[in-house]
């Protein structure tokens, strides 16, 4: 397995013989699948390659799921009939039949493996529009119980639902919820896909849900498809010498938010064959800069992604900040905004997002391709 | 001595008072008078241990006031200040019963004895009828009485009052000093009050201390009060203090065109009216034992006086004639005519124009040619 891993790494860097790698990848996938059928007492090396905040190991008759919560790793034993002896960890019986989720991203990942039927409760509160019609329907019918907002969920209904597990995300402000869940004796597990810095790492979290729902194959298949698509795109744009400069920003009340250089936006742009103008800003998350910095760097931009759907035209941008009209991207009308379902569906299809970006950056390589998640502003 | 203050200096950041000495005996009322800003309130606050002295000592019944615990001091000394408080729904009785603080238990429960003392305090200030009235609905004077009763409920040996009658209505301005007198006499409490109202001080205090710029400038019995000192104290130019009357009288100034012939108190109102309106006048002949004389002394620009109980002499009359010559009109205030002042009629007769407050009938009787007027018209006539 170690050899295979090294191979994978090398193949993603060296994209000369793509076809050969494609075959290798498929072989690898098959091998992995094979591993899950085999009985082997040996501790297999974790199957998670891109994501940094969780890990899965397949053992004989059980799986080990390790998840990073705050700064520590928590180990869960996913068992079928009874938990294995002498193994340390929190036992969870799988497959999970009744699940409560906290965020639309959880639903997105479940959609990827057709697992939304397992959802019986959602901390929704009607706070935003949902782009998953099956879930919306089930919510309306009451098949999925709306538990209110994640800060103050309806614990009563939650107890009544008696879920097998609650999927939560951790912020510094919801420790109260975790404490209460602990007191009530309700199992929860942390989904930290939003902390991943690589879009592929984010996408890989479907394996997390796959492990819980015992749909590892679907998860694997889905993920491999994404990886394959992304590598295809990488390959396609590798021949381009001059990488176009990309600006990705949001302007609000005179402040400009740009993703930092180590985050997943920068990585997506890299996959798409672009040069992110703020890639040298260290760290993850967003950086606040002022308008002058934006205009300075932005002069060099060939393409701009405005990361909000509230701005619908170039005039809107001009109104927010008149000086934007002096930028090359503005004059050449190469500014795109994101679609409203970008945050939910875009997460589900990172390969499409990257393809969109690649098509925007290298239109000549992707003729007749309309971006799905980005709209050109006029 | 019940209360002794020795070389007291006090103040907030700088010394407002310096080297103050005073003392008060049982049952005595001491008045501290002085203009605003002279340090009177600071003095009271220092004596009552609200402020710490910078120098000097205050002894109460031989004990150093600043060495006593607040609860001990509260049984010996009580104060009223000029502070107004909103005490919510408390009734008169409840406010007074706060004075039992140093005597009641940890929860402030009143024993029968406490209630007796509270009612007694209310009686002393004539406020029994205010016991159930909400404090917030009382007039300023009623509130003041209640606050004094509250101080009495502490059963103090010394009572300090800061400006007790300032800002009060007329009825209470008179009533409260009488109450204080009663308290001093009946209970033998030593009372110290501050005021800028000299007339009040003279009326009810036994002794007076005058404070200016933080120092004692005079001290003594109220009856000995000198008008010169008062003038110096207050720096007043427009009025003079008459120690006999115990009042301030406005000073008259200017060239007189009017002469007033009066006596027997009949001229008091007229003279005060003219002075108030800054109309200068002369007066005479008035006998020195006549109250009109005391007023004319201050108010008239010039007075012709005669010795007490003696008939008006020729020289005196001459002086009066001369005054009348210089005037345009003469006012006859309708004074009672008796043996000693009958000759004032001659003064009236020499005048060119006489306005008289007597009736027509009376004028005929004394055979005086004058125009009858009423008090109300006097001002108009004199002003012209």
């Amino acid at each position: 397995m170690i050899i295979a891993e090294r191979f994978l790494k090398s193949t993603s860097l060296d994209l000369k013989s793509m076809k050969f790698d494609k075959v290798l990848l498929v072989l690898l996938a098959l091998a992995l699948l094979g591993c899950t059928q085999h009985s082997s007492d040996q501790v297999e090396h974790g199957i998670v390659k891109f994501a940094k905040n969780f890990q899965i190991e397949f053992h004989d008759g059980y799986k080990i799921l390790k998840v990073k919560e705050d700064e520590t790793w928590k180990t869960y034993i996913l068992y079928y009939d009874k938990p294995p002896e002498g193994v340390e960890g929190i036992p969870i019986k799988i497959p999970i039949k009744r699940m409560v989720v906290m965020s639309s991203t959880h639903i997105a990942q479940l959609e990827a493996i057709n697992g939304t039927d397992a959802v019986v409760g959602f901390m929704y509160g009607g706070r935003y529009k949902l782009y998953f019609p099956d879930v919306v329907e089930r919510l309306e019918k009451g098949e999925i119980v709306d538990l209110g907002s994640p800060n103050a969920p309806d614990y009563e209904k939650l107890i009544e639902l008696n879920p097998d597990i609650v999927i939560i995300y951790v912020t510094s402000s919801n420790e109260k919820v975790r404490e209460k869940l602990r007191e009530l004796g309700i199992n929860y597990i942390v989904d930290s896909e939003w902390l991943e810095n690589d879009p592929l790492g984010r996408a890989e979290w479907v394996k997390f849900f796959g492990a819980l729902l015992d749909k590892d194959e679907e998860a694997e298949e889905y993920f491999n498809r994404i990886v394959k698509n992304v590598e295809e795109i990488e390959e396609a744009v590798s021949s381009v010498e001059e990488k176009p400069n990309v600006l990705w920003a949001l302007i609000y009340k005179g402040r400009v938010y740009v993703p930092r250089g180590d985050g997943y936006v920068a990585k997506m742009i890299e996959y798409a064959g672009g040069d992110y103008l703020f890639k040298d800003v260290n760290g993850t998350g967003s950086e606040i800069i002022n308008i002058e910095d934006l205009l300075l760097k932005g002069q060099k931009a060939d393409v701009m992604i405005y990361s909000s759907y509230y701005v619908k035209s170039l005039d809107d941008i001009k109104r927010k900040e008149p000086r934007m009209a002096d930028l090359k991207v503005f004059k050449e009308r190469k500014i795109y905004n994101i679609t409203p379902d970008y945050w939910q569906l875009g997460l589900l299809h990172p390969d499409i997002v990257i393809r969109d970006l690649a098509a925007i950056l290298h239109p000549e390589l992707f003729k007749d391709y309309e971006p799905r998640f980005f709209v050109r502003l006029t | 001595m019940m209360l002794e203050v020795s070389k007291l200096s006090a103040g907030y950041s700088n010394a407002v008072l310096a080297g103050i000495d005073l003392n008060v005996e049982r049952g005595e009322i001491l008045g501290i008078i002085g203009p605003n800003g002279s340090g009177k309130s600071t003095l009271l606050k220092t004596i009552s241990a609200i402020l710490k002295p910078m120098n000097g000592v205050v002894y109460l019944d031989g004990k150093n006031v600043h060495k006593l615990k607040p609860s001990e001091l509260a049984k010996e000394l009580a104060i009223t200040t000029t502070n107004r408080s909103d005490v919510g729904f408390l009734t008169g009785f409840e406010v007074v019963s706060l004075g039992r603080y140093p005597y009641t238990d940890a929860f402030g429960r009143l024993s029968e004895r406490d209630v007796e003392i509270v009612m007694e305090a209310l009686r002393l200030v004539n406020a029994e009828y205010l016991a159930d009235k909400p404090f917030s609905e009382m007039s300023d004077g009623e509130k003041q009485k209640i606050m004094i009763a509250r101080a009495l409920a502490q059963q103090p040996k010394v009572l300090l009052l800061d400006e007790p009658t300032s800002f009060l209505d007329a009825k209470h301005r008179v009533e409260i000093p009488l109450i204080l007198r009663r308290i001093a006499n009946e209970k033998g409490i030593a009372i110290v009050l501050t005021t800028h109202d000299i007339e009040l001080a003279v009326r009810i205090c036994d002794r007076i201390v005058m404070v200016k710029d933080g120092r004692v400038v005079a001290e003594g019995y109220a009856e000995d009060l000198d008008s010169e000192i008062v003038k110096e104290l207050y720096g007043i130019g427009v009025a003079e203090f008459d120690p006999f009357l115990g009042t301030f009288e406005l000073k008259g100034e200017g060239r007189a065109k009017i002469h007033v012939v009066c006596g027997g108190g009949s001229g008091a109102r007229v003279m005060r009216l003219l002075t108030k309106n800054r109309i200068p006048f002369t007066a005479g002949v008035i006998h020195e034992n006549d109250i009109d004389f005391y007023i004319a002394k201050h108010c008239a620009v010039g007075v012709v006086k005669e010795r007490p109980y003696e008939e008006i002499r020729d020289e005196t009359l001459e002086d009066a004639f001369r005054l009348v010559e210089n005037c345009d009109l003469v006012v006859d205030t309708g004074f009672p005519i008796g043996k000693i002042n009958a000759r004032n009629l001659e003064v009236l007769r020499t005048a060119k124009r006489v306005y008289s407050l007597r009736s027509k009938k009376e004028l005929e009787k004394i055979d005086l040619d004058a125009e009858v007027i009423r008090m109300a018209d006097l001002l108009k006539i004199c002003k012209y």
Partner: protein
Amino acid sequence: MRIKFVILSFISIISIFVGILAGSVHASIHDLYDYLKGKQDVRGYIIWEVRVPRTLGAFLGGACLAVSGLLLQTYFRNPLAGPYVLGISSAASLAVALCILAGMGIHNVGIVGSAFLGSMLATVLILCLATKVRNAVTLLVAGLMLGYLFSAFEKILITLAESQKVHQFILWTFGSFSGITWDNLELITILGIPAMMLVFTLSKPLNALLLGEEYARSMGVNVKAVRMVIVTLSSFLTSLVTAFAGIVAFVGLATPHMARLLFRTSDHRILIPTTILLGAIVTVLCDIISRILLYPVELPVSVVTSMFGAPIVIYLVIKRRRV
């Protein structure tokens, strides 16, 4: 007066029952009884594990805040004083902002711990000031200014933070009794109830302080000492509630007035217990409403306390014509 108090006690008990019975799941007292007797009943479990700690938390929290407000209103002789005038809530808020917005929380201490630590720090500051100032008004002004200072730093953090985090933080500042655990409740009980009892022992000097510090001293009150105790108790009570429930507006300010108006007294021996009960009742009822009004989303409790409290006080004031 006695009768009114008995009625009030009765209402407070009823409010607890309403709190226990109100919820999204149909559960009755019978279920609770069964559960406590050992029967495995989900509904009884729900009442016991979710509703009881929350309702009792609101009950005690409201009582603590109301009493804290009363203390400060009397001491400062200011009807607009509330538990937050000394800057306690601003300090707690700043501490929580450091946690949520700047990620500078102290490990293992969490939001509850941070809020409490922040409040206590402010309390120490205020106590230091209290020894130095000459009178009550000066202390009030100092406290208000301290509050503004903390608030300023908090606003800096808000300006620099991502909008998602700011949203979370703001919600905390609006206050909520959601998710109170039995552990939380234990702490509130052990710390809050003795503190409230201590306040009751201050009834006598508090009555004297109605006339102001100078008069109080002249009647034998050790004003300096009482001042320290008042500030400490008030800050402690406020800090306790703020740590667990965020900033609950209005209760501390309005309840003492309601108590005064309903019982027509300013005597603290009556006011303190009645304020405690009224504060508890009001907060429990507002907590229930906050759960129900926009179900399944919970409203922050401060929204409800302000919305329903303000008109009630206005009505009382107009009707009785004095506060």
